[in-house]
């Protein structure tokens, strides 16, 4: 039992220690969504409408930065020694995803401090479901980042995927315009986009408008998406390599 959890906990802890020692990273992750949000929000005189989207973008940036490091870390870094240790690959995946998700969550919580600007008032009790929702979204996006990064040879490939897949996925998730007003095929894309359900979940917990699809549906889809990505990450990492992993 300890041979499964000890490596996972160690990896998780490593992410936190590294993060604490490089605190300026927070600025890089939180600053750009904050600027986007303030510009678009003030410009359209509707800060509340774009708040959840900006928070999810913060979480997404953090998740991407953490998982992109897998690519380098595996060739030249700590992950290399994990690959030749007897620790199960699944425990490594769990530790890495939990660690990166925790960082994304912390940065999401930092962004939450700007909620009053959007006119959101949060009671202390309400913080619990909000924090839980942000954690679930962090976990999901980290899982997505892991699945993409694991097979990648270079960080430039990841950047391409980020621009062609992740950012567009965010754009049509209800972050910029609600599903109700979407046109044509984009509406269909929004309907199958798991991120739509994440935004809706946040809107619901923050009492912001456009909390559609409904809360139960949003919760189930987000959680299921996260679970599928976690399983997929585990399966991918456990595969034997005939080419070199590093």
């Amino acid at each position, binding site marked *: 039992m300890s041979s499964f959890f*000890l490596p996972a906990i*160690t990896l998780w802890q490593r992410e936190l220690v590294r993060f604490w020692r490089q605190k300026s990273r927070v600025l890089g992750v939180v600053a750009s969504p904050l600027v986007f949000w303030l510009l678009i929000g003030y410009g359209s005189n509707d800060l509340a409408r774009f708040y959840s989207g900006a928070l999810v973008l913060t979480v997404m940036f953090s998740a991407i930065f953490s998982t992109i490091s897998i690519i380098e870390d595996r*060739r030249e*870094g700590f992950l290399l*020694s*994990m690959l030749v240790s*007897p*620790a199960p690959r699944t425990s490594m995946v769990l530790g890495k995803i939990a660690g990166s998700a925790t960082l994304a969550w912390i940065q999401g919580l930092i962004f939450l401090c700007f909620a009053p600007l959007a006119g959101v008032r949060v009671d202390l009790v309400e913080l619990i479901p909000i924090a839980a929702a942000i954690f679930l979204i962090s976990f999901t996006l980290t899982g997505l980042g892991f699945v993409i990064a694991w097979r990648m040879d270079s960080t430039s490939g990841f950047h391409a995927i980020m621009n062609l897949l992740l950012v567009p996925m965010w754009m049509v998730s209800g972050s910029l315009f609600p599903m109700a007003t979407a046109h044509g095929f984009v509406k269909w894309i929004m309907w199958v986009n798991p991120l739509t359900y994440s935004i809706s979940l946040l809107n619901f917990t923050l009492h912001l408008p456009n909390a559609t699809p409904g809360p139960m549906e949003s919760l189930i889809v987000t959680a299921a998406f996260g679970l599928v990505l976690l399983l997929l990450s585990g399966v991918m990492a456990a595969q034997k390599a005939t080419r*070199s992993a590093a």
Partner: protein
Amino acid sequence: MIQVQNLTHRYGDRVALSKVSFEVKKGEIFGLLGPNGGGKSTLFRILSTMMVPTEGTVTLAGHDVVRAPAAVRRQVGVVFQTQSLDKALTVEENLRAQGHLHGLSGALLTGRMQAAMEKLGLSDRRKDLVETLSGGLRRRIEIAKALLHKPQVLLMDEASTGLDPAARRDLSRHVESLRSEEGVTILLTSHILEEADRCDRLVLLHQGSIVAQGSPQELRSRIGGDVVVLETGDSASLAAGIEQRFGIKPAARDGQVRVEIPNGHRFIAEVVEAFPGAIQSVGLHKPTLEDVFVRETGASIE
């Protein structure tokens, strides 16, 4: 301790290793010597269970690398060519994390960490962040890290890359004491002759195949006597001239003619006399592993 049988590996159509077989005995320091691209890295990745070979079998400490990678990993310590340390963590934190990967914890791990740091002269640096340390120290941390779980076999990939000669000698000293004091079997890859010379036995790898194996002494003794290297403008015609006149077959390469011959000093006098003006410089040395490699493959190691 290590058995490699008929090992072949292909990346798509490209053959990286072809029918490689050798055996390493317990307590040996064994070298894989060859130029970059010769197959060393592929072989290393297979030995360290990072990659599954196309054909052939490898057993380490009695376990098959393909069928029982977890068992192999428990008995093997790996030192990579690239860094495998977390630079944002201290020496101690790196070692502790590594111990946890092997399921070690508590007083047992602390004891192992102290012993490893002492052995590699890292004790006074244990609180330092890795990013503040020199290349030589980092290598020693890598070794300390690889030894925490008391492996029977230590695999080292180009471990002295990027180190200055002093740090390299220091590293060799540590490796030697691991073998003599702990009985660890060591397999290392290198393209540095001086390092290969300190191995008990070695194989020369070229284009994925073993071209020679034995102790450095045995390999060198394949060349009788001395090696004479003549620098010249036209190596082909000088080589032909020497063959005709002395009845020996020299190896000609761009601008160089190499002759293996007993009593090289006498030959030098005669050859310079025989081809006045054709020779720009003359060198004489006892056979090195480089000479053996050139003789077997026609190519150079470095």
